[in-house]
């Protein structure tokens, strides 16, 4: 199964980047083999709709689970529609997160955890 983790760099040892739509990279990990692919998040600088653009990228990669810090309402809606399980409040490294997930340490998030535009600094808006 493919697990997508939002990360600050494109490696499996990278720290988790907590902002789903604005993270630097998606590290997509195959939970059986621990092989991974790093996908730069093209939405990280988008002026609007970053959450949806990011969700689309993740869905296109065939991920079934997203491990991240926070997710906004649009991204939450989109990911859920694509049948992707969302886990928020995750920290540490990508590898640790995936291992914890495999052990069943996480529970699924049932609602968006931040409001609109939460990952955008005032000056960007």
């Amino acid at each position, binding site marked *: 199964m493919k697990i997508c983790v939002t990360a600050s760099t494109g490696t499996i040892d990278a720290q988790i980047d907590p902002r789903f739509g604005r993270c630097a990279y998606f590290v997509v990990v195959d939970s059986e083999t621990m092989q991974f692919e790093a996908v730069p998040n093209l939405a990280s600088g*988008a002026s*609007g709709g970053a959450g*949806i653009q990011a969700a*689309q990228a993740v*869905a296109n990669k065939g991920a079934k689970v997203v491990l991240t810090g926070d997710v906004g309402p*649009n991204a939450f809606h989109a990911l859920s529609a694509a049948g992707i399980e969302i886990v928020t409040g995750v920290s540490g490294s990508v590898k640790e997160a995936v291992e914890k997930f495999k052990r069943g340490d996480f529970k699924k998030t049932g609602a968006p955890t931040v409001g609109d535009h939460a990952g955008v600094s005032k000056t960007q808006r």
Partner: protein
Amino acid sequence: MIVTVASGKGGTGKTSVAVNLALSIENVQLLDCDVEEPNAHLFLHPELLKTEPVYTFIPFVNQELCDHCGVCSKFCQYHALFTSPNNVLVFPELCHSCGGCMIVCPKKAITETKNRIGKLNFCAAEDLTLVYGELEIGKPMSVPIIKAVKKQMDKSKNVIIDSPPGTSCPFIETVRGSDFCVLVTEPTPFGLHDLKITVQVLRKMIVPFGVVVNRAGVGDNKVYEYCQQENIPILLEIPYQRKIAELYSRGIPFSQEMPEWTEKFQTLYSDIGKLVKK
């Protein structure tokens, strides 16, 4: 003549200036384009004649024709569409109604549907007509409403427009096409800061403008110095007076109770007329 009354920030008395000016001259149509917080009607207590909904067009995806190819969501530069393996989601608040997704969909699965974003209110207060737009709560789309308000413009009248504060898209949409822009400012460092930004925008747009200093006497001389340096006419000063402030807080346009101000606003309007002709 079309005159927009604007200010770099909210709370400078912009609406008060627009309303007092409108009441002091004849044959006026007042357009309140401050659609996020329309309040000219609160000073005028007009009779509401009718309301009209304002729509934008957003895509509607026929899920039976759609094969989830993702062409539409890839195309949409506003990221208003999301393709999942079993349907396409539309995010109306991000859609700019460009219609592109309809054209690019290889299955012709997309048609348009109406998305209500607010309404227009048509009002009358004696011989003054007022049109104001109102944005529905939670719809971040003031520009289409401003456009709808401006469409109601009656050029046979003296048109006065109350602009949204600030200098971003809503202000630019409002002031576009005006013969003149009145900038209401306070003589304070904040007022000056916002005034400078607005002046830059108006110079780029080539809309002539002048300044009305509200609450004159509260701050310093910097606004005056700046206007002199930049050759910007100061058209009127409204002093910081208890009576004016009191009338304002009771929702009464002060020129109604202080007739000398009706004359001052008439002079303001004829001065603007002269500047426009120049």
